[in-house]
């Protein structure tokens, strides 16, 4: 591959992965607080439809994006209320919302199917874009992509290096202890579930307004599940989640790039590949295989690596908290 083509490819991967970065980071924040929002697939569909519809009708991209974030936050509110206040199973609520939002997006989105509409304008950053290799890869995009970079750094700093991040982690790990130290566990969980939901909504808006323009029936189906898998694959660590988002984004782009090169391979193989790969990746991330590989290594190396690759879910993920 010629160098320019390679740079172009990477650049398009970065752009195409942006929604997964948003959704992955949003869900990471939610799960760090101990709540699983399983509704991602439906939320992304409904918010993508909302963003397109609102932007189309109002003529304002910003309104469309905000509306999508509001939709994401509202669905997350249902997840939070149902699981925190009403103590219902988070998986059940999330799954039902997945189906509900998907159907709702089809129903309400019908007038908007396959009509041309607004998109977020391309905005190369003057000066920076001229840097060889790095410039076109990182600085030749639109505002949403730049926002995803900022968010990635911001979430990493927030979780790992602020007092609030410490509170967040404690709530997901051991809410009893957080409560004993004066943390309002329920409020924290509501807050991060809503925030995470808003980011998932932003991911939806990024699809319909930037990555996969417009709206059609089940426009983004499957993306939410990939995002959920990325959070597990990323071991609930923001930078690894971002890496996972780019990895899956790259896979998809590679699929469509390689398809013409392998005319004998049925197109369905490329369609199913990300999902088959999702399973493989999860097996690698959670199975015994990793432990066995680690066991083969020198003890010092093992200790160093295991800290990096081994990451369990927040200990209180999915568990309701009740202060006596």
């Amino acid at each position, binding site marked *: 591959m010629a160098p320019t083509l390679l740079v172009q490819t990477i650049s398009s991967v970065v752009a195409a992965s942006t929604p997964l970065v948003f959704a992955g980071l949003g869900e990471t924040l939610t799960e760090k607080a101990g709540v699983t929002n399983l509704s991602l697939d439906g939320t992304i569909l409904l918010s993508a439809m909302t963003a397109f519809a609102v932007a189309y009708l109002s003529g304002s991209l910003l309104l469309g994006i905000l509306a999508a974030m509001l939709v994401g936050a509202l669905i997350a509110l249902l997840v939070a209320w149902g699981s925190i206040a*009403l103590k*219902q199973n988070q998986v059940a609520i999330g799954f039902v919302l997945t189906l*509900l939002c998907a159907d709702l997006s089809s129903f309400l989105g019908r007038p908007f199917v396959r009509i041309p509409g607004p998109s977020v304008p391309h905005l190369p950053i003057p000066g920076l874009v001229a840097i060889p290799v790095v410039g076109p890869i990182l600085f030749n995009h639109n505002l949403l992509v730049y926002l995803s970079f900022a968010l990635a750094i911001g979430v990493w700093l927030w979780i790992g290096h602020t007092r609030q991040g410490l509170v967040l982690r404690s709530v997901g790990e051991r809410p009893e202890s957080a409560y004993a130290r004066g943390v309002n566990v329920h409020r924290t969980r509501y807050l991060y579930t809503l925030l995470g939901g808003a980011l998932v909504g932003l991911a939806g808006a990024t699809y319909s307004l930037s990555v996969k323009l417009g709206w059609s029936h089940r426009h983004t189906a499957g993306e939410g*599940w990939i995002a959920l898998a990325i959070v597990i694959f990323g071991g609930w660590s923001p930078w690894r989640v971002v890496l996972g988002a780019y990895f899956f984004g790259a896979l998809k782009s590679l699929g469509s790039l390689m398809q013409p090169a392998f005319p004998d391979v049925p197109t369905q193989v490329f*369609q199913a590949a990300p*999902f088959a790969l999702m399973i493989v990746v999860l*097996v690698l991330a959670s199975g015994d295989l990793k432990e066995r590989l680690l066991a083969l290594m020198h003890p010092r190396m093992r200790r160093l690596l295991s800290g990096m690759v081994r990451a369990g879910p927040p200990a209180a993920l999915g568990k309701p908290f009740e202060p006596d």
Partner: protein
Amino acid sequence: MKARSPALQVLLGVAPILLTLVAATAILLVAGANPLAAFGQIISGAFESPRKLADVAMAMVPLLLCAAGMLVTFAAGLWNIGVEGQVVAGALATTWVALRLNAPAAVLLPLTVLAGMAGGALWGLLIGLIRTKGKVNEIFAGLGLNYVSMALTNYLIFGPWKPPDGATMSGTDPFPRAAWMPVIGTSRASLPAILLAVAGIVVIWWLLRDSQWGLRLKAVGQNENAAYRLGIRTSREIVLAFMVCGMLAGLAGSLQTTAVYRRLIPSISGGYGYMAQLVVLLSGLRAQAVPLVVLFFAAIQVGSPRLELRMYLDSSLGGVLQAGTVLFFLLVRGLRQRLSKE
């Protein structure tokens, strides 16, 4: 818990449906449609003629079978979102038998049923192994495989099984007559299919209540680790639960091909696997409540395409009604539990 008046009990029981109707009314108004007319279309679309009633009965078949299977996986504490793929696997196995074998109906039909059950069970086995050996949450294993099964169906329809005069979205060639499940008169209702579905739910209800196997499943579902310590081979039970569920779901897929479409079509599962998940949740994981819920879901399923024909609305409103009812059911249940505690 406080004693409540019967009237209040009934009110709380139907509250999810009422709330769903209120919400759906709002949604229809947003979409600029007449809500009453829309509901009326769904109801008449499901019940207006014997022909429609037969359709409802046939829509109940896959729902009953998938729900029965899912009662098994739920008892073992598993979220078998892969039912959809298991339905597809059953349909694929059945299609293979129906298109390949040349035999009289008396031989071929039982074989298609067995093939469907085996196909679904194998798909379940795959999910079970990924869960137990690969230590991957069954939600992701099942869901990923659902997409794989969809791609596989398309590949087969547009590849090896494509009709001689070219592949289309309408699927494979029709099966030979010997692989058509018999129907009652000129209706679309197939008695063997209905009987198989009824047998499925009854047998599962009975096994879960009274068998040693049902008790083991329950133990695994409540605490996998402790069940293992008690000497239950938890991995085996989990894989088996997926396989039994797959068997029933595969039977559903098999009947979709032999009794409904008489061919393999791209979306053969018709979303029944996901819908059955909702059914089981709405029935509160109780086998006794499943048939009634299934009737409700099947009626909406059969009635809602009317919206498209008569009102130019998307038939996905049916799905909104189904999922909405379950959502409100969960929320109302949570509210009740909360109120009774205070």
